[in-house]
């Protein structure tokens, strides 16, 4: 299933003009505050009638201004998690969660018990939204959207109000949703870590326009995208396969760049997964360092060197079939005399790869579409 979006809309002082396709999997909208992300999602949901445009999910046309087609929101069946939770104040949490059920077609879908468990809201079921904390509200809103058996999921910063631990619990579920169903997800987030872990496709927006679009792996490991994403957030995404669980709790991952040792990844042997490596977590060395706590030392070759205007530099390395980004100071780059073709080592701490940077692999669709 693919969502095709093409929109033009003008507010006083702001013009939106975007066009993109969101394949199955998760498409992240990324951009500054006020860049038009919510506006796009609202148009897809049918809450905003854009001046012009067309929105379709495969052959189902949700909107076509030219042909005067505009399905009302309830016929679109999109599960929308709003930036503000918008829970129904007169219903209990349980009733809120089950609201979409009344209208959903019969058939399989997320089970209440599972969603409640995953979101940690079992104790809230009989409460009403009025007394919930900000994070609790948002969790219920996520559950409500999931349980409505949507054709598409729209999520507007669904995790912003949650703490790391809760995020870490919910992310795998979103991954599963992304991978195990063919429900496309349109996802707004300010967190590159989230985006890198979840996104199949990344749409970077700026002032109402699409600035960059592409498979998330490519956009994220493209040194040229560093300014758009923010230097802190650049990094590369490696595809890996789980090949061993060591006794001391480390997991062995095979990548085409070499073997990676990471803190326990709870997946079965043979699982395909993706690992984000932030550019700033990579150290470049001319000779293989000894007596050092970093466990992952990958032989690599300098592909390109991007010197910015500031003190920083981004080096693109090739290790096996993967591209790895490293961010370092211009001074180091010069001290090490880095140049394309130079053989180096990429040094990576095991612990620097946070759990939230390791995600289940994107199967089927992504491989088909973006490889």
């Amino acid at each position, binding site marked *: 299933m693919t969502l095709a979006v093409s929109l033009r809309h003008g507010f006083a002082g702001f013009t939106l003009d975007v066009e993109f396709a969101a394949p199955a999997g998760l498409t992240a909208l990324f951009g500054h505050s006020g860049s038009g992300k919510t506006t796009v999602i609202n148009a897809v*949901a*049918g*809450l905003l009638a854009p001046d012009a445009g067309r929105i379709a999910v495969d052959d189902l046309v949700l909107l076509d201004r030219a042909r005067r087609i505009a399905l*009302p*929101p*309830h*016929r*679109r*069946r*999109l*599960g*929308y998690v*709003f930036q*503000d939770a*918008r*829970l*129904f*104040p*007169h*219903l209990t949490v349980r009733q809120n969660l089950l*609201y*979409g059920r*009344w*209208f*959903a077609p019969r058939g399989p879908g997320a089970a209440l018990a599972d969603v409640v468990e995953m979101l940690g809201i079992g104790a809230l079921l009989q409460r*009403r*939204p*009025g*007394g919930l904390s900000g994070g609790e509200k948002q969790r219920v809103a996520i559950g*409500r*959207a999931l349980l*409505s058996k949507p054709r598409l999921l*729209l999520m507007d910063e669904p995790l912003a109000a949650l703490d790391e631990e809760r995020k870490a619990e919910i992310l795998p579920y979103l991954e599963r949703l992304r991978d195990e169903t063919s429900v496309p997800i349109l996802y707004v987030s300010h967190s590159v870590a989230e985006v890198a872990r979840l996104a199949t496709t990344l749409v970077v927006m700026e002032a109402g326009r699409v600035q960059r679009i592409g498979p998330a792996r490519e956009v994220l490991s493209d040194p040229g995208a560093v300014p758009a994403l923010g230097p802190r957030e650049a990094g590369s995404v490696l595809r890996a396969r789980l090949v061993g669980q060591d006794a001391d709790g480390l997991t062995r991952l095979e990548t085409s760049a070499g073997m990676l040792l990471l803190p326990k990844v709870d997946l079965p042997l043979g699982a395909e997964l993706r690992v984000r490596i932030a550019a700033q977590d990579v150290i470049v060395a001319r000779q293989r360092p000894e007596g050092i706590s970093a466990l992952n030392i990958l032989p690599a070759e300098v592909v390109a060197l991007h010197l910015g205007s500031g003190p920083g530099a981004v080096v693109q390395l090739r290790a096996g079939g993967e591209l790895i980004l490293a961010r370092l100071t211009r001074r180091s780059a010069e001290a090490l005399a880095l140049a394309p073709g130079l053989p180096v080592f990429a040094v990576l701490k095991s612990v620097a790869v946070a759990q939230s940077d390791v995600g289940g692999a994107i199967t089927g669709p992504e491989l088909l579409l973006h490889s």
Partner: protein
Amino acid sequence: MPDWLTSDEWRAVNLSLLVSFWASVLSLPCGIAAAYVLARFDFWGKQLLNGIVHLPLILPPVVTGYLLLLTFGRRGPVGAFLEQSFGLVFAFRWTGAALAAAVMAFPLMVRAIRLAIEAVDPKLEQAAGTLGASRPWVFLTVTLPLILPGVIAGFILAFAKAMGEFGATITFVASIPGQTQTLPSAIYAFLQVPGGDAQAMRLVLISIAIAMLALLLSEWLGRRVARRIAGT
């Protein structure tokens, strides 16, 4: 029947209750519908509808009574139709008194409910829409529960007005003891007789007592509902 009331008075009390109750209950769906349409839609003739709804408030009640007589009387266009098609007769029946009371109370009911609807955050209705609820379902499951305090307010306003309505009722269905003589008609009759003040006052007190009870009940209900909606 308490012995401090004559049988006519007792019947007037009963009739007033009956009339007010049905007048407010039966006009409730129309009131909600009219309020919803006025609050949420824009259409040609909206202001006309709005004007018609307000008419009974603007006109002296006697005029409304005459208009009812001309329209809903046995020979009136609507009245004749209703009688032939459904055997529904208003003239000189308590049903006519209820109709008159309902018409007189209608603007009050619609205004209260309309205000409540206008205060409902459309974002919640949108959220319900994205969850698959069509407009009528959104109304039933989100809007209606949220406007319940307004509906209760509208209902009690209508009930109170119906308890006090006199001019339109007596003009439309006259005052036949036991059939169309409501409390206000009885009170009016006493006031017009020299020395009837004391009797009138007794009925006034009964009328007040009933309305107060209804008012208290509505306040209590309204509070409960509002607390539920505050959502804690």
